């Protein structure tokens, strides 16, 4: 049996959709769905949920690299088979959750996890740092301005103690996206690590005719920097495009639309840091992340500048914010001028908006604080 290339349509099944979720529920989940009453985080990474039936479910949350192999998934399955009757789940931030239905099953599970080296860190709950939501980077994508898995690894190594503890004023959500497409919620994260390009696209006149529809390439640029142009290829004049480089803001959309306009560059590319976004509607409305460090180089393999920047911001926040205050709520309370000072981040013009709705970001009040920025 199996696929028969000679009769591709024979016996074909389509549109099955995903399997029904309920078949994968651990029994205690199945029985108590919709009946949960309250929960408590017993220790970092360990949650207990209490049902109105009296049942309890204990969840052990484990960090992962997200990029994982079949072998690794099998190891996860081994653990779930040993402790959780063969059930587990993944969270919306790429952590694994192992669930058991009695308190005395927790410690053996924790011990097992601990016995496996650095593979299964327990934590990511409450007022700490949980897993970094991230993207492909150099492992798979064609438009990245930085890697994803590597920077995530080095940042999490450095912030590890915040993953395994709950000592921060509130939860801190870190995200990484390797280009401005921002696959993930980088635009609404407490701390965002964002790959950015800084060189305008090159134009591969030799190939453009074959691979691009010129009108689409031209229309792709939100700032009208891509213009029709003629070029000489092998002594022949062909229709191509040119880029007004002063107008380019390096969004990469032209490359998305036209493979003959590559942008990536070892020196041009790097990382910007944005902060103060949030998703929840808790207390304050969701907020966008704000750009505070415009560029850090791709110093592989350890990205020391990025690691240091993230840590500095996190620790300034940890020291200064009030209980329950998210990074963005803190920055707004103390004022952004104070934020830059407290985090020891030099303020640059790059943090001043000049895009579409920029006027809304200008300071139209006399209220300000005297910081070191005022000479």
């Amino acid at each position: 049996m199996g696929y028969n290339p000679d009769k591709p349509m024979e016996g074909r099944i389509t549109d099955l959709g995903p399997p029904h979720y309920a078949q994968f529920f651990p029994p205690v989940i199945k029985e108590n769905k919709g009946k949960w009453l309250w929960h408590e985080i017993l220790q970092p990474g360990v949650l207990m949920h209490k049902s109105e039936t009296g049942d309890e479910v204990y969840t052990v949350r484990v960090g992962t690299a997200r990029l994982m192999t079949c072998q690794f998934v099998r190891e996860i399955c081994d653990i779930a088979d040993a402790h959780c009757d063969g059930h587990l789940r993944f969270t919306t931030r790429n952590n694994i959750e192992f669930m058991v239905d009695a308190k005395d099953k927790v410690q053996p599970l924790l011990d097992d996890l601990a016995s496996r080296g650095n593979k299964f860190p327990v934590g990511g709950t409450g007022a700490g740092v949980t897993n970094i939501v991230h993207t492909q980077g150099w492992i798979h994508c064609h438009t990245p301005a930085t890697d994803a898995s590597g920077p995530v690894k080095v940042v999490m190594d450095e912030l590890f103690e915040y993953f395994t503890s709950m000592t921060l004023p509130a939860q801190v959500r870190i995200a990484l996206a390797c280009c401005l497409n921002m696959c993930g919620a980088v635009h609404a994260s407490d701390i965002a690590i964002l790959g950015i390009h800084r060189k305008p696209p090159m134009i591969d006149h030799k190939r453009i005719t074959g691979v691009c529809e010129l009108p689409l390439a031209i229309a792709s640029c939100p700032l009208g920097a891509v213009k029709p142009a003629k070029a000489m290829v092998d002594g022949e004049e062909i229709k191509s495009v040119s880029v007004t480089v002063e107008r380019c803001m390096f969004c990469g959309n032209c490359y998305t639309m036209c493979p003959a306009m590559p942008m990536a560059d070892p020196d041009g590319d790097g990382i910007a840091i944005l902060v103060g976004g949030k998703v929840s509607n808790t207390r304050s409305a969701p907020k966008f992340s704000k750009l505070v460090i415009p560029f850090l180089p791709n110093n592989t393999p350890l990205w020391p500048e990025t690691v240091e920047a993230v840590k500095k911001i996190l620790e300034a926040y940890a020291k200064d914010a009030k209980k329950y205050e998210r990074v963005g709520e803190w920055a707004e309370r103390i004022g952004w001028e104070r934020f830059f000072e407290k985090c020891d981040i030099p303020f640059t013009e790059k943090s001043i908006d000049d895009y579409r709705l920029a006027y809304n970001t200008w300071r139209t009040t006399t209220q300000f604080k005297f910081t070191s920025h005022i000479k």
Partner: protein
Amino acid sequence: MAKHETPLLDQLEGGPWPSFVSDLKHQAETKPEVYDILGQLELSYKDRITHWKHGGIVGVFGYGGGIVGRYSDVPEQFPGVEHFHTIRVAQPASKYYSTENLRKLMDLWEKHGSGVTNMHGSTGDIILLGCRTEALEPFFWDLTHDMGQDLGGSGSNLRTPECCLGQSRCEWACYDTQETCYHLTLHYQDEIHRPAFPYKFKFKFSGCANDCVAAIARSDISVIGTWRDEIRIDQAAVKEYVAGNYPANGGSHSGRDWGPFDIQKEVIDLCPTECMWMEGDELKIDDKECTRCMHCINVMPRALRPGADQGASVLVGAKAPILDGAQMSTLIVPFMKVEKENEYEELIEFIETVWDWWMEVGKNRERVGETMQRIGLNNFIKIMGLEPIPQMIRIPRENPYVFWAEEEVEGGFDRDIDEFRARHAA
């Protein structure tokens, strides 16, 4: 395929966080093409640049999405990743698995593909990283026939919907996010697999305003649970909190000494609507002023619960920055019952009204949020057949530039200039 030297990547094997490098190396032992993944990645680390070519159109028959084509730009050096397409497999709602299911899937993937995955992709799919073109159909055959599973979305179509774990393990879910997600995913298989939209379209479902699936930030239609009656208060539990017998915020802050629990400072003063107060040792809430932000409930999970008359808010238009800047979703329907009983009729009608219009007027690569911005919120409301209500806006307009339709203005727009001049000399 042989091992490559990876001096740069090797530096990512230390440290307390799980190392994807170690994991890949381990897999490479039995799946040698993974050495080429490591090799090409090492080259990227050296060159500080990606080594993947732009795009590549591949797929399985009858589907317009679910596979993202990818080819190496240094295939001679790393033949094992010459083709390296990803397959997006639709995940079960809120990502519960049996080990049986997972093991089977892994077996399949080791057989047909690279043996490397993302659990999960940012949209929520199971991402299988790295497949040769000729292996796509065989994998798909096995996936559908042997596992009864299917691909997720990619391209200009409905993307695989995603939800928070909701009622399955959370006391706050105001509707059944999983069932809703599952039902709509099945209902819209055609829209997921056959691109017919101007651009991608995403649904996400969160059970309450905490929004654990980040719906408001990254889904074209965000369905977020809420209630319309009163927060349920257990005054006895309130007293326990005040006495310090229950940990605040379910123990979220237990790693640091924040001093004894102070209900005034930690709950009442942080309520954004200032609608709470103590009367003796009873906590009072003026529920009609409450905006159901969840803060007080988060802090005192044993004392407070969402109201019992539950449903969801429906918001539209979130997206990442490309092109006009990022958007959060905008509140369009403040409260909707989301119920399996009527097969989500109201929600489905809402979705389809959005689609019918967007498919007609949306430009190529224009997210629905951008189309909304282009035509204006008022027009969008009209198209949706809704009444404009102040809940849709944060603040009323600050400029006086109101459009008036001719029929709204007494006497209409047509006037005779000569008649006017007879009364007003020029």
